[in-house]
């Protein structure tokens, strides 16, 4: 008994807006446009929403701001911030609230103009007093420390990290909405300027604008709102630490825990998943999460991604949008893993469509590998 309402809620609207550069737009305007598109996708209007889930880059009271902006009177307002994973926690809480009958239509929204906004990059979190004096680049150095440890312990190579970046780029080349679509070679990733060893600039996600939104209802209503609802089969999250120094083992993330609970909720195994999205802020993330979510054994992630295995035409389609590395990264990528999962399950993914995608896994990360959240979505055939 895990209590999760497997398949009893579904995503009936999904949209993105302003991906790439959206000069002149405020973050809230981007989030509002994505939300209107997602609601229209389900034939709904803002006033139909009675549960709002949102995390905005700078607005810590966005639950209030956005309700006012769109004309929503939410019964449930969830402004949970766990970093980029927040939107998968929102999904978990939305499914529970919908199933309990506390609300009928849930909107999850996000928008950022970090690439074109004037001034320095927006920082939503800072190093603690016990880390700041050593001037780590936040967040890159924390991921670099994890990568260095993984390389030391398991012999993972910079070339294997580069395989992740090249696979993401090859998917992005099939996605007309993706920001980085020029050719990328393993050599150019390996030899790119170092930022925080062993991670170079091509191991790091993009800096873009962009917004995303999804709309959920209970399953009984979902089929009347969209011909191909994406049913929520599982959503589970874990927190293991805040500062990177407090992470118990830098080669093992909380995805072990969130993934195991999500698989149990959905009643599926890693081998059953047709298409995978993992939050790839840095190349090491994809390797860690593929291991921790059971697609390969611990320490074997580097070898697993070799030879284009996660690229188009490979055995396991991973980050089919192009991911944070090549699709977009407006600061918190989590919601985009859900939108791409929905597009794949609907068969709407164009040239990058994974044939027969019925079961999709989305995984997101927050902080410095601190928060992990896993969701499993399925087509009607998986109910």
């Amino acid at each position, binding site marked *: 008994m895990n209590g999760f309402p497997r398949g009893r809620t579904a995503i009936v609207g999904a949209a993105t807006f302003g991906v790439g550069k959206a000069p002149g737009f405020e973050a809230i305007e981007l989030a509002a446009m994505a939300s209107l598109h997602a609601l229209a996708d389900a034939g709904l209007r803002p006033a139909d929403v009675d549960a709002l889930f949102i995390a905005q880059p700078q607005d810590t009271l966005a639950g209030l701001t956005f309700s006012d902006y769109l004309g929503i009177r939410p019964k449930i307002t969830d402004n949970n911030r766990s970093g980029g994973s927040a939107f998968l926690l929102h999904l978990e809480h939305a499914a529970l609230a919908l199933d309990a009958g506390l609300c009928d239509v849930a909107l999850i929204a996000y928008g950022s103009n970090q690439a074109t906004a004037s001034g320095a990059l927006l920082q939503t979190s800072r190093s603690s*007093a016990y880390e700041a004096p050593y001037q780590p680049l936040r967040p890159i*150095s924390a991921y670099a*420390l994890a990568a*260095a440890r993984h390389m030391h312990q398991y012999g993972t190579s910079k070339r294997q990290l580069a395989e992740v970046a090249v696979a993401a780029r090859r998917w992005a080349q099939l996605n007309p909405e993706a920001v980085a679509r020029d050719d990328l070679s393993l050599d150019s990733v390996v030899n790119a300027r170092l930022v925080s060893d062993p991670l170079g600039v091509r191991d790091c996600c993009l800096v873009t604008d962009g917004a995303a939104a999804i709309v959920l209802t209970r399953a009984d209503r979902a089929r009347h709102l969209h011909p191909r609802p994406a049913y929520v089969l599982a959503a589970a999250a874990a927190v293991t630490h805040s500062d990177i120094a407090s992470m118990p083992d830098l080669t093992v993330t909380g995805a072990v825990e969130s993934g195991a609970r999500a698989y149990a909720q959905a009643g599926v195994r890693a081998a059953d998943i047709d298409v995978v999205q993992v939050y790839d802020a840095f190349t090491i993330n994809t390797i860690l999460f593929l291991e921790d979510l059971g697609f390969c054994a611990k320490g074997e992630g580097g070898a697993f991604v070799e030879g284009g295995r996660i690229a188009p035409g490979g055995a396991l389609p991973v980050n089919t949008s192009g991911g944070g590395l090549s699709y977009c990264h407006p600061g918190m990528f989590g919601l985009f893993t859900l939108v791409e999962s929905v597009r794949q399950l609907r068969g709407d993914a164009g040239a990058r469509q994974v044939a027969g995608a019925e079961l999709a896994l989305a995984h997101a990360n927050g902080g410095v590998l601190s928060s992990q959240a896993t969701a499993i979505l399925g087509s009607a055939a998986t109910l």
Partner: protein
Amino acid sequence: MLQPDAEYRSFLAAGRFMLQRTAEGRHVFYPRVAEPGTGAALQWVPADGRGSVYSVTVVRAKPPAVQRNVALIDLVEGVRLMSRVDGMASEDVRIGMPVVAKIVVENDVPLLVFVPQVQ
């Protein structure tokens, strides 16, 4: 008075690297008002000072800033903290390397760093 953060800093300013420990002998870092997980009381004890590099990264700062290493150090007491290894080139700091604590003053503030252990 229980102000672990301020107490840690005043120890450091006096040239002492101190850690917190439970009655059962578990050490804790960073300083807290109670043991995580149990809420049990903590007492200050002098740190041994020895440890080893758990992981390390070289931050490639843009000139004129100089590049620096950022390291995670596992202390012999079983706790891990972020610091920096001085006394050698940043590129030469290796995982597993034995190091020992040293208190330096940087920007008028006492700072805990590590240097290679003399074998």
